[in-house]
């Protein structure tokens, strides 16, 4: 369920880092809690985002939720497919439902994120 090579936040985002580029999204737990997702506001390419700050908005039938960047850096690509098919976040939050790719400015931030085991333990406590 939660890929081994991803890292997670307590705010239910994930990041998958390859060659200094982090692909980020929300976790399967998050999409389940949000319910039917009907709108995603993806960040603009070139925007600088900071760890823990809002970089996207996901709206479900119920409410709007800010999505916080798990790492700092510059947006190099946004998943424009989510504009037409926001439900990708429900059906495939960890792969097809990625939100943006970030060129990491502080790579060591990743070390402080949760491992899949820790994240699932955190979910279990909730």
């Amino acid at each position, binding site marked *: 369920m939660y890929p081994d090579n991803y890292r997670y936040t307590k705010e239910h985002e994930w990041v998958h880092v390859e060659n200094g580029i982090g692909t980020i999204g929300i976790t399967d737990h998050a999409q389940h809690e949000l*319910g039917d997702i009907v*709108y995603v506001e993806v960040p603009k390419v070139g925007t600088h985002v900071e760890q823990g700050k809002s970089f996207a908005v996901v709206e479900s*039938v*119920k409410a709007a939720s800010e999505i916080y960047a798990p790492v700092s850096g510059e947006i190099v690509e946004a998943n424009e497919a989510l504009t037409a098919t926001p439900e990708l976040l429900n059906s495939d939050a960890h792969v097809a439902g990625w939100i943006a790719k970030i060129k990491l400015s502080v790579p060591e931030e990743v070390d402080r994120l949760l491992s899949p085991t820790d994240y699932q333990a955190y979910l279990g406590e909730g």
Partner: protein
Amino acid sequence: MGAKMVDFGGWDMPVEYTGVIDEHRAVRQRVGLFDVSHMGEIEVRGPQALDLVQHVTVNDASKLKLGQAQYSALLYEPGGFVDDILVHKVADDHYFLCVNASNQDKDYEHIAANNRFDTTVENAGPRYAQLAVQGPLATGVVKKLTASDLDAVKRYHFVDGAVLGSPARIARTGYTGEDGWEIYVAPEHAERLWHEILAAGDDAGILACGLGARNTLRLESAMPLYGHEIHASITPWEAGLDWIVKLDKDDFLGRDALLKQKEQGITRKLIGFEMKGRGIARDGYEIQVSGVGSGWVTSGGVIPGVPAPALNRNIGMCFLPLHLAEPGHAIEVSVRGRGVEAVTIPMPFYKRAR
């Protein structure tokens, strides 16, 4: 049940079971079951029960026949809403009011404070649970569980009978824009009935529904929600609820203010809108017209398309100055500081085929 729960005015309430979109479609096409036990009930009894109801409500309860229900409202003297309510005539000396959950105590106190009649008022919420069975197949499902002749009960009428042996008030009312039933029972019977209704509706494709679908269904039907379209600073004229106000009956609370506002004319009115740009209008967002703040969103959101896979509709209701509160005006909804294009459209957004 696998429901997601939220705190709603002190009640643990299910937001959704299988998902808002599925639940919304089930009610439009088949049938859905809602636990709305949080709704409040107030009993008005006594020789002058009608006089008290007439004094505190805007609609004409004297027109009600036994077993008939009426949408109405409680107003403050200056014309704003205390609440919107359903008035049921149980007997000549007994009226049963269904009120909003979060307003139950306020409504009770308001009515009791204005009770200068030979009448008792009871805050009866704890004695009732309420289950709503809504959708085109609802009648067939409820029929399986009661001996009462439901075909003889018209829309906005009710019958006192039993559901699976439990005494029940079975009312052909609802908050979804569909045909359906609201069943009032003693709380100790509610859980068993919940499961029995789901079982009886299984072959009809019944779904358990939460507050999320209840909201998209009522929004699509443009039914007001207290705290959004109506509240203490909004009058029935402004909310487009002229049809429930009967100025020609005897005096009632708020009547003078309504007469005065009718003479002077209202300055703002509720109107529907549809989003044209990307963004979802939420309660409280500002409306701009030609760059000027002109009103506010009262309710908004994405309404599931029916039948699947029809496109969802991105709509809402808002208050606008009177001259703009008609279909066809270009407006902008301020979504997180960004103006998103929208256009005013008529309400309701959905009307069931009869």
